């Protein structure tokens, strides 16, 4: 083709800083998210150490509140979300037979914004103290500005989340468009693998939920930094407004987290029982329904706010309704396993362990949805137990399952199964030890976010077991780290299709070449690879002749743009607007460069394809 500019090719670190390849971005998300998961985990361990015995004095007062706040915020926004994005990046384009995502540049930008948002939040530990108003940042507590201006706390939360949230939002749009427009021929909506479906719905939820938190954060920022009065009662503001804005976002957010895990489980359970997913169309429908209903239930976090019995009752019923489509999923998984030939690889152990654990968390969720009873549960360890059952026992088990499942595809190396099983059992037992007793702690009168509790009222045993369990989970995670690091030093050994897979990602080498598919595959049904294998074919039928492949060029602009935003954020925080202007100027400059110089990309010619297929 005429415009085959020879693209700049970077190596080493520069390659990672400038990459726009969705597979590399997936790895970046996984590593960054993994590091934040360790941070959040260490914070959790410190919380549990303080609560080991009553009346301990290790982390008290706002230090403890900062640990709690940072643990929740880090885990939700900077560990769980990015690891989900890691798998979406690594897998979705492959599953739909695409060479790339719709907006590779935007994809990289999304990653760097998330990353610098997370860095910004965590610099708070060194710059006067971390935010300590809870991950929910309820105003007026979150609006209190330290008169000496040496403690910026919630400013870090506001700006860090704002930056990262923008990254997530554009990431969501990217995946929506990718899935709408980039599917291979024959990949109709009702043939998409379930993980792609959940990625699709999750992206839609991101698109419609994140603007709400953006506005909430802007308002909080205006109040804190520019003397605004949104939540300032003395000037007519209203603190309940923040609760609404936060939860209009916050509840969909929990489904943003769990839906991709549902997708992962669907893939794994079906692969390792060698059966197609039971009730595929009802699974798709249930996913969409959960996503839709997810926007109609936010008030269940506010039953005790004083909304009144009518509002409480309506939102209670709406909340309970979500149990129905979720149940459909649970039973479909069980009946996918039914009659199959189940292989217990580590991935499948995690996936099958997800099912009962998540059901326990989901059912306590329905208990919480009963307003009059929630008056007792709310803001106690019962709620903490509920959401760790769905998040750790659901999402995190799902993510570990996905990690074991897709690791060969992402890194070209098989993880060690024995270490995997040790990881599973320590983590799983530790998990139940940590969070099962917390149900009772809550009912026995222990509020959440407390740095100590009274001795002699029956709370000691539960807290003690809980802390031991947390350590076990830590050990499990360390085993996983050992597993990944030790295999990383071995040569690549993963075959293209290690698990006898069913979907398109297993039709290409592990790790895939940069252009994914030499020829776009033709999809002839659900579980396309399985279909071809059953028909006796070794590989997918191509939908096009071999030809030159267009690739986007790498770019450093996403990184620079995000750094600009980061700098601007600090400028606002310290009211040194010169710095903000510099930061914004950097951002505008990046935008200008991007729009003036069109990216023509480069082409990989047919003759290069064969030898390129080998290396990553």
């Amino acid at each position, binding site marked *: 083709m005429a415009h085959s500019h020879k693209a700049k090719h970077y190596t080493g670190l520069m390659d990672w800083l400038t990459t726009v390849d969705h597979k590399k971005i997936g790895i970046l998300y996984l590593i960054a998210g993994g590091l934040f998961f360790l941070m959040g985990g260490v914070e959790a361990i410190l919380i549990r150490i303080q609560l080991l015995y009553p009346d301990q004095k290790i982390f*008290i007062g706002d230090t403890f509140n900062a640990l709690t706040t940072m643990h929740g915020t880090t885990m939700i926004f900077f560990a769980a979300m990015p690891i989900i994005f890691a798998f979406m990046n690594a897998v979705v384009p492959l599953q739909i037979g695409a060479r790339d995502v719709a907006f590779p540049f935007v994809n990289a930008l999304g990653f760097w914004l998330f990353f610098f948002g997370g860095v910004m939040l965590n610099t708070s530990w060194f710059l006067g103290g971390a935010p300590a108003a809870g991950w929910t940042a309820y105003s007026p507590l979150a609006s209190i500005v330290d008169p000496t201006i040496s403690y910026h706390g919630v400013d870090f939360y506001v700006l860090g989340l704002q930056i990262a949230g923008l990254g997530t939002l554009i990431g969501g749009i990217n995946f929506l468009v990718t899935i709408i427009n980039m599917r291979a021929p024959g990949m109709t909506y009702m043939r998409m693998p379930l993980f792609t479906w959940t990625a699709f719905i999750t992206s839609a939820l991101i698109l419609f939920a994140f603007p709400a938190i953006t506005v909430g954060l802007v308002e909080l920022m205006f109040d804190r930094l520019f003397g605004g009065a949104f939540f300032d009662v003395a000037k007519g503001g209203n603190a309940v407004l923040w609760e609404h804005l936060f939860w209009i976002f916050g509840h969909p957010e929990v489904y943003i987290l769990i839906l991709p895990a549902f997708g992962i489980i669907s893939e794994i359970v079906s692969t390792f029982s060698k059966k197609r997913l039971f009730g595929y169309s009802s699974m798709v429908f249930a996913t969409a329904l959960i996503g839709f209903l997810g926007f109609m239930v936010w008030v269940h976090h506010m039953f005790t706010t*004083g909304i009144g019995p009518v509002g409480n009752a309506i939102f209670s019923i709406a909340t309970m309704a979500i149990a129905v489509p979720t149940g459909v999923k649970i039973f479909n998984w069980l009946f996918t396993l039914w009659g199959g030939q189940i292989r217990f690889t580590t991935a499948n152990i995690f996936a099958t362990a997800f099912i009962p654990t998540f059901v326990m968390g989901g059912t306590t969720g329905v208990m919480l949805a009963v307003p009059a009873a929630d008056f007792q549960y709310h803001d106690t360890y019962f709620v903490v137990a509920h959401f760790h059952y769905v998040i750790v026992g659901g999402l995190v088990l799902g993510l570990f399952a996905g990690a074991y499942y897709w690791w060969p595809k992402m890194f070209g190396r098989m993880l060690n199964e024995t270490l995997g099983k040790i990881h599973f059992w320590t983590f799983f037992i530790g998990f139940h030890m940590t969070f099962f007793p917390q149900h009772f702690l809550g009912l026995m009168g222990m509020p959440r976010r407390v740095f100590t509790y009274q001795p002699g009222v*029956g709370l000691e045993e539960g807290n003690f077991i809980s802390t031991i369990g947390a350590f076990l989970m830590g050990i499990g995670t360390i085993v996983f780290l050992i597993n990944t690091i030790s295999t990383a030093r071995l040569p690549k050994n993963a075959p293209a299709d290690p698990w006898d897979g069913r979907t398109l990602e297993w039709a290409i080498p592990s790790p895939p070449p940069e252009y994914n598919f030499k020829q776009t595959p033709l999809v002839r049904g659900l579980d396309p690879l399985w279909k071809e294998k059953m028909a006796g074919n070794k590989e997918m039928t191509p939908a096009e002749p071999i030809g030159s492949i267009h690739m986007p060029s790498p770019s450093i602009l996403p990184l620079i743009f995000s750094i600009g935003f980061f700098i601007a954020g600090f400028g606002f925080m310290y009211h040194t607007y010169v710095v903000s202007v510099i930061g914004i100027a950097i951002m505008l400059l990046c935008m200008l460069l991007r729009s003036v110089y069109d990216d023509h990309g480069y082409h990989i010619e047919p003759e290069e394809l064969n030898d390129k297929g080998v290396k990553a």
Partner: protein
Amino acid sequence: MNRWQNLWRFIPLFGLMMMLLTGCGHDTISALKPRGPVARDQLFLMKLSLGIMILVVVVVFAIYVYVLIRFRKKKGDKDIIPKQVEGSHTLEIIWTVVPILLLLILAVPTVSYTVKLSENHINDKDAVHVKVTAHQFWWQFEYPELGIATAQDLVIPAGKKIAFEITSADVLHAFWIPSLGGKQDTNVGMTNVFYLEADDADTFMGKCAELCGASHALMDFKVVSKTEADFNKWVEKMKTPATIPADAKNGEQIFKDNCLSCHAVNAQGLGFGPNLNGFASREMVAGILPHDDESIKKWIKDPQSVKPGNKMPQIPLQDNQINDLVKYLDSLK
């Protein structure tokens, strides 16, 4: 069918869970040991919903265990290709309809109790009306009809509805007495209304259940439930100013000079700090220290070491002045 027999094995588990639930915790703070009608209603809802949930969990676990054991690939099994089942309408209808039915069973009492427990008894002649104001990190209680105000210890008559009007002076808190019933948030600039009732005379523990700052964990209070006669006596005592013995006069002066700006010591006084009228008969000092002279001294000497971030400053006083103060405070019966 044979496999449903598995279900019966879980019945003991069901019973065990229920027993566990009703036997848990200390009887002045556990939501599982209700000491008033509201908490009892709520425990009923909890048990009802828990029962339904256990049913669900048992069914899921039973199928799960069966499937995993029956269909696992055993050593030496030949690789087979199982039948690729697409789905089953009958089954799918069953597991859509049955949960809907279960939820309907739950929904009806949910709605009726939600309405019942949010009744407004403020203008009820038989109810005792209490205005609660939450502060970082203490509680203020006013009895508008009785013309008295107190702090930290909420004194109520047993067997009567207590109609609460709750609000906050600074940030959000939540007012929670687990033994008597569920919590409500105290919002700034708004009031929430609800009611509780205690069966008998006892002292219950109260908690702040919304993150409100550094000492959120220590924002405890006591609920002293008295017989009606005792309650009336208490009201009278609160209205009569305490007689200050001669050896406490010194302390009274120190108090007037240093403390009165924040602490009122009369029946109705409100201030920046808790009203200390009747302080000597309170269960605790500052809500968390046991009530004795040592604690009072410790508190006055360095309030921040007891409750980090609380709003009472450290007042520079000599040890003997503090001793005098304690004598004075001890006389505020």
